[in-house]
């Protein structure tokens, strides 16, 4: 878990061993998860043994702990960064196409869940207005433009803006695409949160 405001830490791990491997990156200041965050793109390492020059401390260290392959996926929508999702494997080898697709889908779902946690007024996940960021919006460009507009309106971050739009869609029981269209058409505007 990394955020733009400087939060660093492991948010969730499947078991204590991977939690420890995750923490190592923060400790050592290098690793695939940090690279994925900085470069805003996945870092897919099928064989860690090839990457010793890239991460001279991290690669041997996790190799000692039995990790052979790492796949890091940024949790992001454009400029909104919510963290990185890492998959570790104890055998070298590429992710299959299916596993890659699954990981990318999982990352999308995680982004939505993290966005919804940002606001207390957000309804439960899977409610009637629940609408996947990726699949549910016909004109995706419009949704991203709407996020940019709302960011200026609320004078907050792009992450806040994305979360506000989702919370509004839940509360009004409308689809994200609908709400985005109204925002871009300037028929709907948001106010800054009161302190």
């Amino acid at each position, binding site marked *: 878990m990394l955020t733009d405001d400087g939060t660093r830490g492991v948010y969730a791990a499947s078991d204590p061993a991977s939690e420890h491997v995750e923490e190592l990156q923060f400790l050592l200041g290098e690793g695939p998860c940090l690279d994925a965050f900085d470069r805003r793109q996945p870092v897919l390492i099928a064989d860690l043994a090839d990457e010793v020059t890239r991460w001279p401390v991290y690669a041997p260290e996790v190799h000692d702990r039995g990790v052979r392959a790492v796949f890091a996926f940024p949790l992001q929508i*454009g*400029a909104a960064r919510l963290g990185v999702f890492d998959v570790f494997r104890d055998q070298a080898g590429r992710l299959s196409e299916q596993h*890659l697709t699954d990981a990318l889908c999982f990352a999308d779902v995680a982004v939505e869940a993290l966005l919804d946690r940002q606001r207390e007024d957000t309804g439960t996940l899977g409610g009637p207005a629940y609408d996947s960021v990726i699949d549910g919006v016909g004109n995706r460009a419009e949704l*991203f*433009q709407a996020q*940019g507009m709302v*960011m*200026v309106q609320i004078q907050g971050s792009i992450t806040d803006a994305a979360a506000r739009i989702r919370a509004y869609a839940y509360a009004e029981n409308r689809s994200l695409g609908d709400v985005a269209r109204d925002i871009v058409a300037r028929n709907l505007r948001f106010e800054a949160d009161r302190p």
Partner: protein
Amino acid sequence: MTTVSAQRLASIFVEVADTLVEEFDLIDFLHMLTDRTADLVGAAAVGLMLADGRGNLEYMAGSDENVKLLELFQLQTREGPCLEAYRTGHPVINVDLSAATSRWPLFAPRATATGFQSVHAFPLRLRSQVIGALNVFGDTKGGDFSGADVPIVQSLADVAAIALLQERSLRRGEALTEQLQGALNSRIIIEQAKGAVAYAQAVSVDEAFTRIRNYARNHHRKLTEVAQAIVTDRTTPPELH
């Protein structure tokens, strides 16, 4: 679309080579490529789409706004020349839109209504993989490609695909996936920046894009970098806020 001028083609490749040697902005580059392709073949509009990790196409760049709407329309209706070129890996050449209603019942009438009469699509290929498609629209009757034009436009599509491997680590098969995901996310950052500038300056999102692009060019900065600064950095140049 008559046979292309060898001189103009050569100058495009020089421009491409010139861009690819130094650090460059992929999305700006793809916009440039769609502009030049439209110019070269006398097409009314050219659009470019890339596939995400799930095999869905996403709009990346286009020579004008009409083409963007048509590309998005293809994505929504799941039919059209781009999707066909992407699925089959083969170019779609010289399709007369007025006679293509049975092939694309939703897309063909919509494209005709937008003012286009013919359409072509070329797969973006990298080794054995198809990673997107380049769409070329014509607006004059008889605007057909000659046999000699086809490999030339295909080569421009191939250039677009190669540009994706910015870091040139062809060694790793994963590099392409990494770059592709990064490029798709950059496109989202640009849309977010367009929204921010459009609202702050009370202009259309298209006008906002022109302003961001001009600013980046005039200041010799990368398009994505400027877009990112607009969305994340409070010290964005006042011209853009």
